[in-house]
């Protein structure tokens, strides 16, 4: 099933790109993901980044220069939703050409800072992405986390603790692409294929090529 959907999406993406080429500049209708009108602007929100190998020492939740930051809110004990999204994102990134891939960073914000220490986050994310290409964003300050979530429209809810100490966490599962101006250019809901993400990323990076950013 996935294969034929992939083909349909690729054909749609190529058609969209062709149309975009003819028009004055790519609009939101060329992207597979969703865009908000007006776009979400995240400003200068930041969170502590627990990955010492990341270039994003300020813990910004936006891209730098002509690149994009791909932001995800999740937790490492998530068995189904998070690994699926991150695996799809990994596939999308691997299929990009190296020049484009080099302009991207993945930022995961943990919604479960109690279990997701910096070490756990780094170990988890390095399973999916090169160690200098992700930010492990974590705060134990609930108000600070809530503020950052609100800006994106994300949310989470910690479940009831079971007898063995385990608990589940419900959370919104969108993946956001944020440019260096802090604008959320596109967001992909859970289930977006790697091909759709890659196609959108390529379009957005093409549009931003050569910018020095703010």
């Amino acid at each position, binding site marked *: 099933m996935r294969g034929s959907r992939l083909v349909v999406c690729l054909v749609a993406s190529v058609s969209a790109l062709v149309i975009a080429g003819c028009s004055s500049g790519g609009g939101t209708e060329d992207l597979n993901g969703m865009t908000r009108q007006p776009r979400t602007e995240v400003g200068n929100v930041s969170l502590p980044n627990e990955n010492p190998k990341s270039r994003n020492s300020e813990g910004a939740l936006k891209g730098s220069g002509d690149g994009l930051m791909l932001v995800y809110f999740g937790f490492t*004990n998530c068995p189904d939703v998070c690994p699926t999204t991150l695996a799809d994102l990994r596939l999308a990134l691997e299929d990009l050409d190296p020049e484009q891939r080099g302009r991207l960073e993945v930022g995961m914000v943990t919604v479960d800072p109690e279990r997701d220490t910096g070490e756990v986050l780094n170990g988890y994310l390095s399973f999916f992405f090169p160690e200098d290409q992700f930010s492990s964003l974590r705060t134990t300050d609930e108000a600070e986390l809530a503020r950052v979530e609100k800006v994106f429209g994300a949310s989470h809810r910690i479940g009831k603790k079971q007898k063995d100490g385990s608990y589940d966490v*419900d959370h919104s599962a969108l993946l956001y692409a944020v440019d260096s101006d802090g604008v959320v250019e596109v967001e992909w809901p859970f289930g977006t294929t790697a091909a759709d993400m890659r196609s959108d990323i390529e379009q957005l990076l093409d549009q931003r090529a050569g910018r020095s950013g703010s």
Partner: protein
Amino acid sequence: MNLKKPALILSAIACCGALLAACGSDDSSSDPVAVNDVWTRVTAPTATMGAVYMNLESADGDRLVSVSVPADVAGRAEIHETVGGSESEGDMDPGTTMEGGIAVEPAEDDDAGGDGMEGMDGATGEDSSMPDAMMGMRELEDGLELPGGEEVSLEPGGYHIMLLELKQPIAEGDTIPVTLEFENAGEVKVEAEARSTES
């Protein structure tokens, strides 16, 4: 030469054979459940939970009531469903734009169906009063129903077997023995192949 004796012996053998065949066809009390494409996702080294997926079909209808894996794989296994999210099936219409909370779908989009986004608000973000719909998991304590003749898929974002208290990471190439317990078909043992992606 006396032909009667060999004929009697042959008949006796034939009768026994028929009886045995009859016994053989009786060893399952009802139709078995077809279990296909059993796989488990490769886990990150720090993960304490895993997921197993598969396709199930029962001709006459059945219910998956419990699942178990060896103790050296995980502490316990449960049947779960992932629920929520802004799109119930994970398929969304390409290029959907949100304007003031209502999804505006592009005219050239061929994909039918799909509700508009719930709770989306077109504000700049500081005023996002309604958060994006959350996703979570619910244990199916009564098990998973398999309507007769219908394929039920356990797949990412939907039904799945959750493995809790993983004893070690699941690596590519591993196979995990999984025992499925069905209300009618009884116990079925399968092997889940570890993969990093769905296909």
